[in-house]
């Protein structure tokens, strides 16, 4: 049942053109342009690609687990899909599990593609297999946090408002959430705040991991906290019709 749900959600996510642009084309553009044009973005000291690659991975996660989930779920409610699913034997946690699996399926494609292109562009992550595991943990926590936040958004607002807000938050986090530009390049005074953003924690966590720093506990705690906040809000406000 959950697998059937995951299968159809994945297919629909991949079929949706606009979402695919957001999920693949945009991150790859940022990656290639950022890596090949030296002075467009001030990324600070270090090899550009090593700073850029983890950020773009975070961007990919943000687009799928937050923006896509929020928009898709908002319209599912609008068109009565959630309501009809509520009348089938699929339990609510089954729906949630299906969505999560679908997000992870799409993200594996994204991570694979972004990772490969980054390696081709010279990305040299350090730390070996341990770093890969640490990176996967951070990715998973980031996915959980953003999915919960996406569902919370879709659960409490109308579909159109969700669409607008999900895109707005995406752009705001992209620009001001330490996704691409490392935390260290932000003004000293707001750095602690930006580090507490889910995007900041995810992207900085990935950058630290790929620089060989091991599991970034602080970032993981921040992501867990966002996951709890999103989960609570979603559980309280989520309406199925």
């Amino acid at each position, binding site marked *: 049942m959950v697998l059937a749900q995951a299968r159809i959600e994945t297919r629909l996510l991949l079929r949706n053109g606009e979402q695919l642009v957001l999920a693949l084309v945009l991150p790859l553009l940022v990656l290639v342009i950022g890596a090949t044009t030296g002075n467009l973005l001030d990324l600070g000291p270090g090899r550009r690609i090593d700073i850029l690659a983890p950020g773009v991975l975070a961007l990919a996660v943000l687009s799928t687990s937050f923006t896509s989930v929020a928009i898709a779920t908002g319209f599912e409610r609008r*068109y*009565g899909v959630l*309501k009809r699913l*509520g*009348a089938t*034997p*699929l339990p609510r946690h089954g729906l949630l599990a299906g969505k999560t699996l679908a997000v992870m399926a799409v993200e594996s494609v994204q991570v694979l593609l972004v990772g490969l292109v980054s390696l081709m562009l010279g990305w040299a992550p350090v730390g070996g297999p341990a770093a890969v595991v640490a990176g996967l943990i951070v990715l998973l926590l980031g996915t959980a946090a953003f999915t919960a936040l996406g569902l919370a958004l879709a659960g409490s607002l109308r579909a159109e408002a969700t669409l607008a807000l999900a895109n707005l938050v995406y752009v705001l986090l992209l620009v001001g959430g330490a996704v691409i530009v490392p935390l260290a390049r932000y003004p000293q005074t707001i750095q602690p705040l930006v580090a507490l953003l889910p995007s900041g924690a995810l992207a900085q966590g990935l950058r630290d991991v790929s620089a060989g720093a091991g599991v970034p506990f602080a970032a993981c705690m921040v992501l867990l906290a966002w996951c709890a906040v999103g989960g609570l809000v979603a559980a309280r406000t989520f309406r199925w019709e």
Partner: protein
Amino acid sequence: MRYGEVAAVDTLSTQLPASQVTAVVGPNGAGKTTTLETCEGFRRPQAGTVRVLGLDPARDAAKLRPRVGVMLQSGGAWTGCRVHEALRHAAALHAHPLDVDALVERLGLGSCGSTSYRRLSGGQQQRLGLAMAIVGRPELVFLDEPTAGLDPQARRMTWELVRELRDGGVTVVLATHFLDEAEQLADRVIVIDHGRIIAAGSPGELTATGAENTVRFTAVAGLDMHDLRSALPAGCTVQEVTPGGYLVTGPVDPALIATLTAWCAARGVLAQSLAVERRSLEDVFIELTGRELRP
């Protein structure tokens, strides 16, 4: 059942017969959808109890869902989802689903199997909704206006399908605005208005109540009306409306026709163009709910 201050369904109390077709009819906004959705477990009544297959639809939802099929009044499918996909997915959520391909053919959706939901015509969307409601072999189905927007062929096909479901032991509850549909299809009709049941019974019972059915016949002019009336059951009136044109009003049943023709035969009178004019369910409906348009 209230929406805020609006009492959408108020003191609605009835039992639905198992393995039969029940039609819920009523003007726009009467509370048909609200009633069905309360039975489907989407809404909890503020007062009173609902039992579906002996269970509480809101509390025992997990037990009921595999046994109950639901067709919403509109929507319910992903706009980008193809017909085959949507139906296969609905089938995969049930333990013993019907054969998807056969069902698609049966509903005449074969040629649009790979069309996405948003590109289907209204009637095709409606058929897909029906298919998704029955694909899991439910024991009980709630159909909210299943034939709205269907062409005559598709409507007949739907009627046939509903009859087959009933003959297979499935309980069917459907809301409809087509009184002929209710008359043809339903074993029991419930008329609701302003959230209350205002009439219920078999189509025959409903059209018979009020007893304003008539028989017209022509024969030689000048029959003895007084004698005829005394031959007929109490409550009948007879009248020679035009010379040789007679009108009998009352509870028209087979016995009445037999009495009438026997009376004629005894007098050597040939009754010509004898016609029973029964009220249709639609006449009854208009009588019960008035002629004004609902908001």
